[in-house]
Structure formats: structure tokens, C-alpha cells
């Protein structure tokens, strides 16, 4: 029962968080300064997501093999590989790095 309550509560919170901006602002144009900030939200948030994903809470998730995989993905991207192929290269590189004896 507690689990179901928690699920319903998180679903309601998530819905509200995503809905509140569109519902309240409507089609009102944001001032240019706000638009400039929003334009930079994407790179800032993406960098934060990657860092948090790689480091983990209190940096307990640091794993060099994951960094090898990300470097391989970036290299594949630089060679203009399609998105899925670049990710696949990262997966293979990570898996191979984890087979190394150290």
C-alpha cells in the first residue's frame, strides 16, 4: 500500500512539474533575457546529467571503464558515425575495458 501511495505521489509531482510552466505561462512571450538563459539551459543541464551519471552520489560511482566508453563514443561522433553506431562503439569499448585484468 505504501509503495502504491509513493508511486501515485511521484507521478502527481512529476505531472505538476512538467505542467506548471506551460499551463501558467500560456503563449506569453518570455523576455529576451529569459530566452537567452533558456538557450543555455540545455548544454548546462546535459553536462550536469553526464557528470552526475558518471560520478554518482558523493563520487561513489566513478568507474574508469565508463570513461573509456564515453571517450570511444566521442571519437566515433568525431568520425561522423551515426548516433546508434557511436553508442554501440561506446558499449563495446566499455565491455572490453571491463575484461582487462586490472
Amino acid at each position, binding site marked *: 500500500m505504501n509503495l*502504491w501511495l509513493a508511486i501515485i505521489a*511521484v507521478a502527481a*509531482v512529476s505531472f505538476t512539474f512538467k*505542467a506548471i510552466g506551460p499551463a501558467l505561462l500560456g503563449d506569453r512571450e518570455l523576455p529576451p533575457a529569459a530566452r537567452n538563459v533558456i538557450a543555455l539551459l540545455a548544454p548546462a543541464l*546535459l553536462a550536469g546529467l553526464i557528470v*552526475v551519471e558518471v560520478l554518482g552520489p558523493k563520487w561513489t560511482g566513478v568507474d574508469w571503464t565508463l570513461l573509456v566508453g564515453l571517450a570511444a563514443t566521442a571519437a566515433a561522433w568525431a568520425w561522423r558515425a551515426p548516433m546508434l553506431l557511436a553508442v554501440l562503439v561506446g*558499449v563495446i569499448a566499455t565491455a572490453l575495458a571491463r575484461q582487462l585484468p586490472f
Partner: protein
Amino acid sequence: MESEPASDTGGTRPAALSETPRQRLVAGLRVGVGLALAAFMLAVTFGALARSEGWGVIAPIVCSLVVFSGSAQFALAAALAGGGGIPAAVTAAALINARFIPMGVAVAGDLRGGRLRRAIEGQAVVDASWVAAHLGGGRFDRYRLIGATIVQWPAWVAGTALGVALAPPESLVETLGLDVIFPAFFLLLLLDELRGARPSRFAAAVGGVVAAGLVLVVPTGLALLGSTAGALLGLRGKGKQS
């Protein structure tokens, strides 16, 4: 299965709005297919984790159906397993998802209809779709946003169901290197974003450094929120550049 070229996953797309709504929706769907594969794999691990934590079969699948947020669902599972009770678990998930408030504000002007319809369309805001729909200059392509999300949602639910049914050990996911999938997708989206102006790179650098510092001392959700400070500081870089 056709994959999306890396150069077409984000960044500025000034020509995008000259395409028909159908073309923009299809572009979103194409981006969404790649993202859905990543979401599917992550959902398998969520389903397996929830099953191992005693959630049973139905609850994890319903959770993915109605919450549809990997970070919040993992936070919920971890907090419940930690014995913090419902308030702590819901707070942890809410903190993780608080970033959707500014992200929703960002897309508000590009959605359609009255308040209710906009609130529902706002549910299409998930990290990767939001970035993929960014046209640059703080504008978003509504069709691309919805197209990219509409593929990921069923993949997320189906992956959870498979994870619940198979319950693969976490070690298998790690051995196969599948845990790199999500950060790798985020990295590709970021690299495309960074093709643009210098302020984007400055914002990303600040966002990354702030998140790295904060995650040492505060919960992950707060660290993510803190990373958005990079957008404010990026404006300073923009000012200096001009």
C-alpha cells in the same frame, strides 16, 4: 532500423521550422528511436531492481507508465530501499525532477492550445527530447519534442516489463557495458549543442563543474538543479564575447 545522424540530434536548426509539421514529427520520431533503445535498456535495469526490492510484478510497470522518469524512479526505489519512508522517497524523486519546472517554462511558448492542453503537451518534456527539440535561441520545435517522446514512452514501459519478467542481475548489465548507454546519448546530444556559440561551451563547463562539486555534498537532484546555474553564468560569457 534507421538511425539518426549524430549531427541532427540537437544544436541550432534554423531551417527546421520551414519544414512541414509532418516532417518535423517524423524527425522527432527518428531521434526518438535511438533514444528509445537507450531508455529500453535502462528500463530493463529498473524493472530488475524494483523486482529485487520486492515491488512485485505490476507496481514497477505502472510506475514506469505514470511516472516515466528514469532518474526519479531510481531515486524512489533507492529511497524506499533505504527505509526513509514515503515522504523521504517522494521528496528525493521530486528533487530529481525539479529540473522539469524550468524546462517546462522554456517550452511553454512553443506549445499549443489552452491551459489544459498545454499542461498535457508539457508531459512530452523529457531530457533527451527537450534537447533534441531545441532550435537554438531558447525556441523549441513542438512536433519534434512530441515525436521524440512518443517513441520513448512505450519503450520505457516495455523495458520495465522485460526487466521485471527476466530480472537479470545488475552484474550482467555492467559486464556487457550497457550502463554506458545513457551517458553516451547525453554526451552525443551535448556535443551537438556545443557546435554553436562559445557561451554554450561556457555554460556546459560551468554546469559540469557545479554538478561535480554539488554531488559530493547534496542529493543528485539538487546537483542537477545546481548545474543549471551554468546557463546564468554562460550569459556572462556571452556578454564578454559581444
